[in-house]
């Protein structure tokens, strides 16, 4: 079953003449892991924000489990269903103590205190940060902060997790940490994951890779499909994982002997 559908979606910011997204028509099925690739300014972050009604389409419609994101009455249900994690780990942590931060969403939803406690502990264990529950977030590493941010979203018990370039500001260690956490989550809960990124190697484990360019879907397929189209990817301003370069040496090799 499709959990998020984009029905001929267009989006234009009020003060700009050019649309950021044009006629996006795509659906994400429940339990799937999709990576959305695109260079800076391709419209991929806008796509993320359309998923939980932070932005609403100027054309077409986005539906989350059948709920139209423009419908004010379903706003909270949409946001509770689609959890979002953003790029900058510092700017999404609200509280000065880890566990208070994770409790933020369920508190907003009016959940019973004892149930909040249970959810917070669960979410922190899920991301492996339970021992840090009483720490101050600003003293944690980037990767740890992102895991806290993921826990903060998990405490809402969402069905879909949208991560908007969650590793862009992290070092390789932090990146691995966050990706492993997402991977584990998927294995244990079967959650639908939408990972927006420009790191090619983060897409390898995805079921599906969608490439966005200039506000349109340029490629859509399995990682093997997409990354075999080396030239197209290069033209779109994207790389393929470095070792793909070895795969077709006859065509790709630019060593002195070949030229």
């Amino acid at each position: 079953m499709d959990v998020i559908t984009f029905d001929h979606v267009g989006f234009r910011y009020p003060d700009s003449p050019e649309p950021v997204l044009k006629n996006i028509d795509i659906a994400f099925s429940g339990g799937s892991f999709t990576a959305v690739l695109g260079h800076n300014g391709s419209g991929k972050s806008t796509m993320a924000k359309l998923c939980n009604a932070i932005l609403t389409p100027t054309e077409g419609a986005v539906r989350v489990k059948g709920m139209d994101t423009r419908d004010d009455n379903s706003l909270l249900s949409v946001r509770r269903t689609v959890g979002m994690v953003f790029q900058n780990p510092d700017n999404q942590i609200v509280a000065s103590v880890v566990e208070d931060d994770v409790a933020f969403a369920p508190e907003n939803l009016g959940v019973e205190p004892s149930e909040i406690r249970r959810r917070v502990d669960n979410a922190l264990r899920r991301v492996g940060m339970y021992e840090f529950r009483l720490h101050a977030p600003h003293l944690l590493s980037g990767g740890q902060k992102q895991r806290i941010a993921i826990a903060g979203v998990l405490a809402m018990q969402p069905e879909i997790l949208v991560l908007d370039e969650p590793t862009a500001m992290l070092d390789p260690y932090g990146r691995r940490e966050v990706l492993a956490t997402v991977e584990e989550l998927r294995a244990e809960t079967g959650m639908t994951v939408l990972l927006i990124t420009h790191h090619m190697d983060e897409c390898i484990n995805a079921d599906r890779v969608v490439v966005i360019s200039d506000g349109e879907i340029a490629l859509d397929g399995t990682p093997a499909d997409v990354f075999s189209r080396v030239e197209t990817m290069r033209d779109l301003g994207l790389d393929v994982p470095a070792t793909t370069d070895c795969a077709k040496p006859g065509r790709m090799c630019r060593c002195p002997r070949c030229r």
Partner: protein
Amino acid sequence: MLKDITLGQYFPGDTPVHRLDPRTKLVCVILYFIALFTANGPCSVGLVFLTLAFAVGISRIRPGALVKGMKPLLFIVIFTAILNLFFTEGEVLFRWWIFRVTDQGVYRTVLMVLRIFLLVSSTFLLTYTTSPLQLTDGMERLLAPLKKVRFPVHELSMMMSIALRFIPTLIEETDKIMSAQKARGADFDTGGLAKRAKALLPILVPLFVSAFRRADELATAMECRCYHGGEGRTRMKTLKMGVGDYLTLLLYCLVVAGAIVLVRLGL
């Protein structure tokens, strides 16, 4: 480095004072102020002094830390002490040039310095033993009745707790921006006041730009986590008043009553 400044005066601990409900502590500080300003004789001042000494003793806060807290106020204390000491009427104890010291002067000076010390120390004891978060929480709940007259209690306390959360982040950021501008030859240490003020622009502008960007992103992140104001919001950590809280409140009421009685008796 700016980072080295210790912010928030909270000393974590697990004493009965630390464990008190923040609301109890806030009310007690107010009661203590009342007692302190009522007291004006040796006995009544002695009573309020002993009350604080008792609380400090239980809290295991080093008295030295309280004395240290007086430092920024030293100038005002000395200034008022001099005024009191030399310009109070009474029986002259001794004279020197145009100055004369009276018995009343000495008495009032001692009283005044002691009062300022107790006033400052009692507030420090509160902040030393209560985390900033507990404090804002306690204040939000104490002021809750004001919501009825549309006073934005929840919004204020949310703003305060977010500000507390971002202070370390912004300090770190200031540090970074300062280093970056120094690397481009910015000079913050020489020149007159005007030049120095101007030299701050390369720090302040980026800092403001970044603070606004952070605020914007944080607002989005909060919306994503279903924040929609204080309405219908619950809390994971509910404050509970225990027997200890009621006893402490009772004790402080007794201190206030005691001070009033002692003053009436002229002691």
